[in-house]
């Protein structure tokens, strides 16, 4: 295995938690629900995934537990929003602080203890394919599924009837309702699905990429994922490009650590200026529908946020 190939494998492996988190949040925001609790959700699901794994001695049960908890948190945000019309941003923000601090309290007895690892799944024959084989077919379940999740979620969102329904609820719930779509049910379903993916992302941290648990184990990754969702223009493929780009920067920072002190400390902050820049570019490009821009750039920066993102839907009775 060449050095280049090994680096690619490292980047893809390291990026798997953010892929889950970014795609989960993308689905949730596409249906109109901002899950601002992501920073806290990743933290607590990383802890629960690891704790359950250590207790049951099975990483797979750990992943399921994380997914369920992530889904439950998203469900809570949606239900509170539906029932009491409390702003999604407010609930998400409070949950961010609450879940983060809860994780550091509940996780005290799990700090830096050993536990079982995920198995490497080697698919015979396919893993022998040059280059792609070792990446896709000779890895653990989380990395493998993170790779497959990208095209599947893109196809689902943009090429299926269900995906169109989902996006129409996020863009204009009133007209979706007029077409006979049950807005609340759709939002509930997909926001929860998004939450499950975010939860699995949390497990991918503590069971794989950053094995184990320590206080504030996934600190800042939730905010980074939130920034990358926007950088990706609410598109799973563009979002994933953002995640892998960030992964590449992380590897670079590791290699450059001896040369430039401090770069690794500034690195987690890089996605944010990029996010702001993207939002500004999206706005400029959308002003004249990208006319006059090269096609590649148009594909890269066009696409606005879902129009009813974060807005509480109140059905007119």
């Amino acid at each position, binding site marked *: 295995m060449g050095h280049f190939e090994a680096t690619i494998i490292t980047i893809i492996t390291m990026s798997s938690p953010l892929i889950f988190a970014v795609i989960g949040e993308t689905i949730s925001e596409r249906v109109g629900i*901002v899950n*601002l609790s992501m920073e806290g959700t990743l933290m607590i699901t990383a802890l629960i995934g690891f704790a359950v794994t250590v207790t049951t001695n099975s990483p797979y049960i750990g992943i399921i537990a994380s997914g369920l908890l992530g889904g439950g948190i998203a469900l809570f945000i949606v239900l*509170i929003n539906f*029932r*009491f*019309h*409390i702003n999604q*941003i*407010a*609930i998400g*923000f*409070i*949950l961010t*602080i*609450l879940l*983060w*601090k*809860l994780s*550091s*309290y*509940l996780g*005290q007895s799990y700090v830096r203890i050993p536990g079982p690892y995920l198995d490497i799944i080697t698919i015979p024959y396919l893993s022998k394919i040059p280059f792609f084989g070792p990446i896709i077919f000779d890895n653990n379940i989380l990395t493998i599924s993170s790779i497959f999740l990208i095209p599947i979620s893109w196809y689902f969102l943009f090429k299926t009837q269900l995906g169109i329904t989902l996006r129409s609820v996020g863009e204009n719930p009133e007209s979706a309702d007029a077409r006979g779509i049950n807005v609340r049910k759709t939002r509930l379903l997909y926001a929860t699905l998004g939450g499950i993916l975010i939860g699995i992302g949390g497990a991918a941290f503590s069971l794989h990429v950053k094995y184990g648990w320590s206080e504030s184990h996934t600190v800042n990754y939730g*905010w980074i994922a*939130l*920034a990358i969702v*926007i950088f990706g223009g609410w598109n799973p493929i563009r979002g994933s490009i953002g995640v892998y780009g960030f992964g590449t920067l992380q590897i670079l920072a590791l290699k450059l650590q001896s040369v430039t*002190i*401090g770069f690794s*400390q*500034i690195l*987690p*902050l890089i996605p*944010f*200026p990029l*996010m*702001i820049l993207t*939002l*500004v570019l999206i*706005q*400029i490009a959308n002003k004249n529908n990208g006319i006059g821009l090269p096609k590649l750039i148009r594909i890269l920066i066009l696409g606005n*946020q879902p129009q009813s993102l*974060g807005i509480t839907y109140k059905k007119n009775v």
Partner: protein
Amino acid sequence: MSMYQNIFKNIITVLISVIIVTIVLFALQASPFEIYATLFDGAFGNLDKLSRTMLITSIMALTGLALVITFSAGLWNIGIEGQVLFGAIGATFIARSFLGNLFIAPIIAIIFGGISGGFLGLLSSILKTKFNVHEIFGGLGLDFLASGLIVYLVIGPWKREGIASTGGTDLFPEASWVPNIGNYNFPIFPILIMLTIFILLYFLLNRTSLGLKLIATGLNSNATEKFKINSSEYIAYAFIIAGVVGGIAGSIQATSIYHKLVPNISGGYGFLGILIALIAGKNLSSILLISFVFASIMVGGVQLQLRLGMDSSFPYIIESVFVLAWLITRASNIDYKIANYIFLRR
């Protein structure tokens, strides 16, 4: 609803929220009443502790007051954390310059800190009004930009003699420290600043046309546009005012608590200010009261660690559960129903 009924309703909401916090603490296998007693003693047990509580109250109240201005204009100023950080950077800039040795250095530092925070607020408003970037994402971006800048300054241009560590810059010259009064370090100046800003903002919101237009923009920016009120302009004012007030909070952190610039100089008080403002809504005087309670929990929380050996996360858990319970109780109208039931039966 009369004023008394309203106060009564608030008391009921507080009671319900405290009960929920107590239940959560039980669920976490902590003993709530021991915690409450320790918190109380830790915040008010002696004059030193009381001074500390008042100092933190003034800082939290400033961030809370800043957020009432943006809330009034209908804005989510999550960039407050960055505005606090920028305030600290601005104050540090003054303290490290030749001005830092003047006897009025703290005043200049705090004013310049306010200006720096206001600058970041202005950036938020430009992103929002010119580029249609939602203030949450713009604000978060600027928060991280500000913390990146601090890390850069602390390990780069402003590093300590010979050592580049994230431990902070050199201490400021003592002339730029905000002086405290008496043996107990009573934070008289931060409190005076807090009260002055409270009065100014109260006057602004209730007695000036700027305040009125700001609130009108928050209620319905489409309608105000029809009255020829340029809502972008008032969004900018709201962000700048909030930035200045947040910046002052940051400069007090730098000149009165740390006496140097450290990476986490905001202490998270910007984000905690959002929790405070979620309860207070658009009510400035509530901010002072809630800040006092929350600051007591933060300061008293130190004793939870020292005396009961509890995790440092408890003050945050108590506060966030309280705010969540408060919002849900309010939104569910349970407090209103209980208040009405009791009043009508009498």
